[in-house]
């Protein structure tokens, strides 16, 4: 390397300005909307002073006391936890299977895995709706619109994300640990449980948290799979009442959702990074020790 390459464009003032303006454009409106949950007045567009009445103060209209809002929150959380509990193990197994699957059928299996990622969400939602309402054959006839269908739809679009995250980690682990375990007499199942899964655990945790966030934020599939008022999630409630005369309590509810998803993705990122660092350190220390002994 001959040092930092010369920058032929001079100081990119215009580019910097565009970038920071874009960052402001993308984030300030959301921050403003969250701030309006603390508005003292009823308006969601005119600031009338600070209060917490829409969070818990108002005895009937605040987030804490509005049954529709608290129900949407618990329903969203329930969906997210169920999605997590099903999509994570299913996706981890699929990632393991696809990563080690050589030869016939592997191409088709990979394409199938990517299918939900390239299908527009509306196409997926319409197809699933017709599946559950038009097909009178088991297993589809057993599923009715409502929480069951919502979970099935969410798991379907979450699966590829789990596979992509876990497979990335699998590729960086490589095959050596598993081969070593097999050489030492472990069965494939034992090699998986004793050697591979502990190394994979950060990716498993991270993908589970991503699924949580995906589920909380999803609108189209959840909306199409819904049955009645009791299956309304937070994004559905926002869709239904954003243009109406809702109070700033709606902004409070949306803020809760934003904080929950950002916290879970932030947690996913940091646990993944920290766990990988902790795993790398002992092996590197061992390596240094070995090299010192050789010298």
């Amino acid at each position: 390397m001959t040092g930092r390459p010369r920058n032929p464009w001079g100081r990119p003032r215009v580019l910097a300005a565009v970038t920071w303006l874009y960052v402001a454009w993308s984030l300030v409106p959301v921050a403003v909307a969250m701030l309006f949950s603390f508005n003292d007045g009823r308006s969601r567009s005119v600031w009338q002073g600070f209060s917490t009445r829409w969070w818990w103060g108002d005895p009937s209209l605040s987030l804490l006391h509005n049954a529709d809002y608290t129900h949407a929150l618990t329903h969203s959380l329930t969906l997210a936890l169920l999605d997590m509990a099903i999509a994570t193990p299913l996706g981890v197994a699929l990632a393991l299977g696809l990563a080690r699957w050589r030869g016939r059928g592997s191409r088709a299996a990979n394409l199938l895995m990517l299918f939900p990622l390239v299908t527009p969400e509306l196409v997926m939602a319409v197809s699933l709706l017709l599946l559950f309402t038009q097909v009178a054959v088991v297993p589809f006839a057993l599923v009715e619109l409502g929480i069951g269908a919502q979970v099935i739809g969410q798991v379907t679009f979450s699966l590829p994300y789990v596979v992509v995250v876990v497979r990335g980690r699998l590729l960086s682990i490589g095959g050596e640990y598993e081969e070593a375990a097999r050489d030492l007499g472990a069965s494939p199942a034992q090699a998986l449980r004793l050697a591979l899964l502990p190394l994979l655990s950060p990716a498993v945790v991270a993908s589970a948290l991503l699924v949580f966030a995906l589920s909380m934020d999803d609108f189209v599939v959840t909306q199409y799979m819904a049955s009645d008022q009791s299956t309304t999630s937070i994004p559905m409630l926002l869709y239904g009442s954003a243009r109406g005369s809702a109070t700033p309590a709606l902004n409070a509810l949306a803020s809760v959702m934003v904080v929950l998803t950002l916290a879970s993705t932030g947690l996913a990122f940091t646990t993944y990074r920290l766990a990988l660092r902790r795993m790398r350190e002992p092996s590197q220390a061992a390596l240094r020790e070995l090299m010192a002994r050789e010298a």
Partner: protein
Amino acid sequence: MDARWYWRALALPGLGWLCLFAVVPVYVLVAVAMGRIDELFQPVPAWLPGTWNAGFLNKALSGALPGGEYWSTVRNTLVYVAAALALCVAVGYPVAYYLARHVRRTKALLLVLLVLPFWVSYLMRMLAWVGLLSTDGYVNRLLQAVGVARPPDWLGGHPLSLIAALAYGYLPFFILPLYAGLDRIDRRVLDAARDLGASPRGAFLRVTLPLSAPALLGGGALVVLPMFGDFYTNDLISGSPRTTMLGNQVNLFILGGPQKNLGAALVIVMMVILLIGMAAYVYASTRQRGGPA
């Protein structure tokens, strides 16, 4: 047990799930689009290709062509998506370029800030604009402050606010892959171009831009696909029948009334339009790889 079969067995539940809930539903969609309706206007799917009835598909296809019943919807979709895509490129390219080429110390911070909107619910981001664009919102008060006497009603079917909202909604999906593509370009190629006498402009137009074309196309596909199926941005930001897009029409047929067959047929038309676009994308990117770098 053979280790090979062990791995396949692990993949089976996931693959089975995807067959049942991702592939079979698409067949049901086709069967409904190719089906009939009974006396109660309920769809009767035609399960076997031999019994297919192309009536609804014909109606949807001819309706989607210029002069047809849904042509204004298709035209709106194409125009708004193209305009939103242009806005994505105009804003997203400089941002991705700046991040890949110039930022050093603040790179981690900027990346976090660019990823953040990705994880804020889309509906929340639209809710934010409903507040800002309402008649007494901050956008109009800003316009009044700079002397616009009667600012427009942004939420009453204004195409500009819809296009801006679409771009706002999908820009994060555009910037990140474009940044990854620009970041991969070898700086030495640019230095070589400069050493051989290219002006900064020439180096950009003849080296950076062609090398970033695959990422540009990929990011474009990532935002165009969901925009085609989007009905909620339109419902929240416009709500007027004047700005109806394909997604709204499908949503209306499927959830709104007894026209599920037609809705399913329209979804197939939408997929055909997208497939043509995807084929163009694949063609362009393979030509890109084969041509001079």
